[in-house]
């Protein structure tokens, strides 16, 4: 899964040296104040400090957990509301999800304000299809009389959805199970695609064949095209220096990316 042999690419390097012995890399994304750090601590057994204020995690924390004999390296990304604003924290999160190629990205959401949190989920789904959505803070939701239908959400998003209360470790076993399945490629996901405006869609379609030519097999052509239109220097650079093409190639490797047999429950 990892391309340890590729030594020009800085991210793959950083990935390789931190992950000896780790079978998979899992990224942890989410809005600020969704209990992301609590999930991180609960999964890794580490005690990263958590506080209830936006933007608390300003650096990238890392930990590990094991499941069925396999080690997973968990990377806690800065909490962001979006991946479009290109502020420092959003750049860190976006770059890791795109260029760090995690085997699975967990998006932690707040069950009490799902609408705002889905904004980020939908953006992550445009970049990666290896996503597990964690609907956290279920206890708070219950207190406020909010019920979330996880199965319906799973059908809507096309990726596994797990309800958790990370603070009391509820739902975490299932979360780890789903993450393991997605990381191993055993779950076929069909991420929800947002309907964009007609002109934007048309513009993206014009660029699509050209991007596919430059980086064959790229799973998120639509998103890359949108970023090029919006103005994203990092994406532009990665096209010019071939970084994106390399990622596409790794992802295309037949035995690894496209061998997902099991469908997401409720999807078939």
């Amino acid at each position: 899964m990892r391309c340890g042999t590729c030594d020009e690419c800085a991210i793959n390097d950083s990935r390789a040296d931190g992950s000896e012995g780790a079978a998979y890399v899992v990224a942890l994304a989410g809005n600020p104040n969704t209990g992301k750090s609590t999930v991180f601590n609960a999964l890794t057994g580490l005690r990263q400090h958590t506080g209830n204020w936006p933007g608390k995690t300003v650096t990238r924390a890392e930990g590990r957990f094991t499941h069925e004999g396999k080690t997973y390296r968990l990377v806690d990304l800065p909490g962001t509301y979006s991946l479009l604003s290109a502020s420092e924290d959003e750049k860190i999160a976006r770059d890791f999800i795109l260029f760090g190629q995690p085997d699975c990205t967990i998006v932690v959401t707040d069950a009490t304000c799902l609408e705002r949190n889905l904004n980020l989920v939908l953006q992550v789904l445009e970049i990666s299809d290896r996503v597990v959505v964690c609907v956290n803070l279920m206890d708070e939701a219950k207190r406020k009389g909010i019920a979330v239908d996880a199965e319906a959400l799973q059908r809507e998003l096309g990726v596994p959805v797990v309800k958790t209360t990370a603070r009391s470790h509820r739902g975490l076993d299932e979360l780890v199970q789903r993450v393991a399945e997605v990381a191993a490629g055993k779950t076929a996901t069909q991420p929800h695609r947002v309907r964009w405006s007609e002109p934007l869609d048309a513009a993206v379609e014009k660029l699509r064949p050209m991007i596919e030519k430059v980086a064959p097999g790229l799973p998120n052509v639509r998103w890359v095209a949108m970023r090029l239109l919006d103005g994203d220097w990092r994406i532009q650079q990665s096209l010019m220096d071939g970084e994106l093409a390399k990622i596409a190639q790794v992802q295309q490797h037949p035995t690894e990316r496209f061998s997902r047999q099991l469908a997401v429950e409720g999807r078939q």
Partner: protein
Amino acid sequence: MILTNQNSDAKSQQSGLWGWLSRWKARRQQHRMEDLLKHLHACERRRRTASVESAAGFLHVSTRRAMTLIAQAEARGLLRRAANGLALTDHGRELAMAVLRAHRLWERYLADEAGMPLPRVHATANRLEHERVGDQVDELDAVLGFPHTDPHGDPIPSAAGQLAAVPGIALTDWSTGEAGHIVHLEDEPAFVFRQIVDLKLMPGQRLQLQSVDEHGQYEVNIDGRTLLLSPQVAANVYLEPLQELHPTAIAAPRRLSELHQSEAAVIDRIDDSLRGLSRRRLLDLGMTPGTVVSAEHTAMFRDPTAYRVRGTLVALRREQADRILLRDESTGE
């Protein structure tokens, strides 16, 4: 990072005071040369003749020094002496365009992302425009989302060096009753521009000319405010007609800041004058057109106010809330 300027002068690598001094001199020389080209380009655009005297005046140097500089530029093939003064060569125009592009992109960056007051943006950009390292300017362009104009509404040259015409018609050539949106605010002379900034005029605002009084004062209606503009100011405000005169376009729209406590309303749009990171942040928090917001708490001196948006509580300062326009319809309840 965009704000760091590396000293990439590879020519003189001497160390010590002497090396530093010669590097500084070389840089100053480069700045002056580029300013000279800018001046020639400005004259070309305005169909004026550039002369040694006008160049000396623009650069604040003696005529003798200006002559030396012009000779050097000529030797480098950047300009030539024509019958009616100085003219740019194609190569010189290319360089002038690169400087202009850097200047206007930096202005956009400083105004939108760094929050620098408009009157100071020009001077800072004058310094930064000379520090063009690698593809930094192209990066700036992409990071800013490929803007078409600088904060004053002047067009930004494309990477290929294409420069669009200055858009719009001056308010002095506008007829009474006509409505348009501001596309350009001339930033020279500085004292007039300062008045423009003080009047809070910004590109993107919608404006209707009400009348011109006997003293030549222009009475205009801008987003519901009635202002009196002096003739000098009016001459420096450029407008483009509104394609369709929407009935609500000129009528004073309600602003989020005017919402009473516990009152709910629907967002119509974020004002065009709010740009850059501030605008993106508001959108990311879900303040998109059609969203229901309600004012929930307000702090001391009514600033900031906490609004309920999509199930979350978000505090905004009055400046932001002022730029969020509400729909006319009332939401009932």
